[in-house]
């Protein structure tokens, strides 16, 4: 069947549209060739984000800064009434907002750190003004050292996390795959932090949770692509006319639909959390989780394709073997362009053996059958390469 496949492809080009090709994993997008473009794009975003981070900083919630929040459910109390009460406690600078949720309207008052007695008094005063029993007031009070503690803990967790993941990827794949994964991680976190800084959205512990989730996703995405790369590694050879970069590109195209589907499947629940949970039903905490997740998820999907993989290609192309292969392919480039079919046939033939032996080996290098069909487009793509 391989033979017929090879014979057909050039003679009767497939009439699939771009979506069809995407669906069948036959896209020929040159991700690696435009590495500079992606890196520049990311660099611009990162610079804007970092600039904002250093100039505007982050809008840290009371969990990080210390302070107290009182949420007083009341349909009647106005913001100015609440301010009057709060001013009586020397908290003229308190942030006072009207919040609407599923169960009605409430007034949220955020003050600096209060000592325990004052905090109770203020709560009682607000409750009295709103004409409700004090127990109905939601109170959150955070000491000044808590933020430091949890920030430190989160940072430690992050460092250990990165080390362990590096170790894991090094053992499971190789060190050179760990580096791009980490780079993509840092990229995603910085982008998310940048968006938070630019938008002035409040950073809460929920945001930190979301950020850590993003790390998980980012790694997850990267591993799926790298698993494919690992599997395709044996395709890289001068005879096949496939350089390491070409192979990474091929792997990316093959997993593109998976990456998209996964991102869609992950974004749907989060959008639901954001739109239904937070906007429709007014649960603010869900919004805190959802927003950071959404930004990070999109960034994660982007970075696994446009940052991690090109970086891997760049690093691997420096290895003597891969450099050599690349040089040989380039010197033969002209010939190949002249008669692509020949190379195509050679490529398929080289893989012919494996096609007949539909590998059960789950391991890394165990390339397979699928390669055979996916190879044919390759030389054509190379030919069209800009």
């Amino acid at each position, binding site marked *: 069947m391989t033979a017929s496949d090879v014979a057909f492809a050039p003679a009767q080009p497939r009439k699939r549209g771009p979506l069809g090709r995407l669906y*069948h994993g036959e896209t020929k997008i040159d991700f690696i060739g435009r590495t500079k473009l992606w890196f520049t794009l990311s660099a611009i975003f990162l610079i804007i984000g970092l600039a904002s981070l250093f100039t505007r900083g982050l809008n840290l919630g009371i969990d990080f800064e210390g302070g107290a929040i009182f949420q007083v459910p009341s349909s009647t109390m106005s913001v100015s009434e609440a301010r009057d009460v709060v001013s009586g406690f020397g908290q003229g600078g308190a942030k006072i907002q009207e919040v609407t949720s599923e169960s009605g309207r409430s007034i949220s008052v955020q003050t600096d750190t209060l000592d325990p007695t004052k905090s109770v008094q203020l709560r009682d005063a607000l409750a009295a003004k709103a004409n409700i029993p004090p127990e109905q007031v939601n109170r959150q009070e955070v000491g000044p050292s808590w933020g430091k503690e949890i920030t430190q803990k*989160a940072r430690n967790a992050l460092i250990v996390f990165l080390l362990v*993941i590096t170790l894991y990827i090094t053992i499971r794949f190789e060190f050179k795959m760990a580096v791009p994964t980490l780079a993509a991680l840092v990229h995603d976190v910085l982008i998310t932090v940048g968006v938070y800084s630019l938008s002035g959205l409040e950073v809460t512990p929920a945001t930190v*949770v979301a950020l850590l*989730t993003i790390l998980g*996703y980012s790694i997850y995405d990267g591993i799926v692509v790298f698993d494919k790369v690992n599997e395709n590694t044996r395709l890289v050879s001068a005879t096949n006319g496939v350089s390491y970069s070409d192979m990474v590109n091929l792997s990316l195209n093959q997993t593109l639909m998976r990456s998209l589907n996964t991102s*869609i499947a*992950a974004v749907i629940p989060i959008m639901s959390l954001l739109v239904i949970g937070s906007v429709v039903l*007014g649960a603010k905490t869900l919004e805190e989780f959802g927003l950071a997740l959404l930004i990070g998820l999109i960034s994660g999907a982007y970075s696994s394709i446009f940052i991690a993989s090109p970086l891997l290609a760049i690093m691997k192309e420096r290895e003597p073997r891969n450099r050599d292969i690349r040089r040989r392919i380039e010197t033969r480039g002209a010939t190949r362009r002249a008669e692509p079919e020949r190379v195509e046939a050679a490529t398929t033939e080289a893989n012919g053996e494996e096609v007949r032996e539909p590998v059960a080996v789950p391991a890394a290098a165990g390339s397979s059958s*699928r390669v055979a069909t996916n190879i044919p487009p390759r030389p054509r793509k190379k030919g069209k390469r800009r």
Partner: protein
Amino acid sequence: MRRSGALSLVFIVVLAVAWLAYTLTLGGHSPQLGLDLQGGTSVVLAPKEKANQDQLDEAIAIIRRRVDGLGVAEPEITRQGDFIVVSLPGVKNVDRAIEVVGQTAKLQFRPYCGSLPTHQPDAVYDEALSPSGQFGSCVAPSAAASSTPGSDTGAPPTSVQSSVPAEPGAPATTAPTTSSQTGLGIPPHGHLSASQTPATDTTTTAPPAAAPTTTAPAGSAPPAPTTTAPANPLACGAAGDRASTTPDNQGIIATDDPNKDGSIDQCDVLGPTALSGTAVSDAQAAIPQGSWLVDLTLKDSGLQGFNDLSSRCYNKDATCPGGSTAIVLDGQVQSNPVPQTPTFTSNQIQITGNFTNKTASDLALVLRYGSLPIELQRQRVETVSATLGRDSLHAGLVAGFVGLALVALYMILYYRALGIVVVLGLSVWAALNYCIIVWLSGNAGLALSLAGVTGIVVSVGVTTDSYIVYFERMKDEVKTGKTVRAAVDYGFKRAWHTIVAADLASFIGAVLLYWLTVGAVRGFAFFLGLSVLLDLFTAYFFKRPMVAWLVRSRWLTDARWIGVRAGLGMEPVARETPIAAPAGGGGR
């Protein structure tokens, strides 16, 4: 292979259905909710200075006892790193609870005056503490520092004996009990002896007050051992409730060792603090001669105060008519050993008695804790009203279900019949997840928080992805010309490798987060980790067998719009031989 596949399919479906049915009918119905979903108060405490594990655990035991005393339903007190997180759902007096929970627990050595029955009117206890009362001279405020030797040595011991229940340790003879709620072992009342003189110890083999006899306390009402009241400080009235906060130079009414069921038999009247727990240098449980004891080492500076107390008690003078010293932690008597000698020359002291390994270790722990009590600082207080909690839960649930439904819809549109596998798989996954959560919340005190709900919602994405990875692999396989049936197995082998690699990364992340962080992040990590493990489980035992079973149906495989082939992007079957048809090869 096929057979084992069918078996595991049946197994997992039966497991999910049966367990879900059990959970919904008998097994607890729904998980315990975190405070952010249920409403309530949570307090995070942290020691001011670095504390070790033992100290923190002891501090938690003390807090638990206090919280139990407040009558809070289902309190949750956990240690997260160096933090102690106290969750109090539905507590009535929030302000009082917050205050009580954060107080520093002190260990004290006090003279034992005598006992009173439980559940008396406050007046009875107040009277006992008044200067003119039964224990007036014993509980009289100590004017000077505790190091001054007892001045009232003139009081004849006989007269004291007549007015006081002779046997302080009587009710405790029941057993070296352990309070089940606190985990704090309450050792039996023992003796104090100088540890380096075992020879002289034998000469005092029959310590008069020590023999844990069953003598009823004379001259007072029976201590009502049948009471079913919990170890509530209020068993000893308001005075008992105040015991832990009363200044050191005043007498107190403390609760006696609780029994196994948490009830207490008597209230102990104690004199002013003679020696504070900080005088303890070290304490260890030991078993030198076949019976457990506690080796207590005092700081040199503490010896004088200790001798002062023991001589007063040894002589049973008016300031220690009970004849024993009470070791009090946080207003609760831990042990009241009888000194075997009026003065100890060395700071090495042995507490002997009817100890078991556990009770001796527990007492040693209490003493060590007392030597360096942890001062807890309030880090974070959050009170969520029940309405806000309900809103969040409702919003989270609605959002979760809508999200799940949309994902299912997308999967069916995209993968057609294979999408059904995703829907069923997600259902099995969700059912098992729910059962495990309910089970854990019943048995391990796990509470589902908003962050946890988010973790689960997020893991829907991860779980769905493992199906996507598999189906995309199958797509790859059929493209090389394999039949759908062949692709089921080959695709799975490849996909399994990827799924394990990726899930393992997520799981490592979850474990690390759980281990290294506090609060919301922790809850999130737990549920994420749980869901990821379940994903691996269902992927292996459900996903492949289910797909294999599905493609046995020719109709489901070949149907033009909904079939598996359509879902895998294969050409529709033209003729009658679908299996043999060349796959993915020709043009459209």
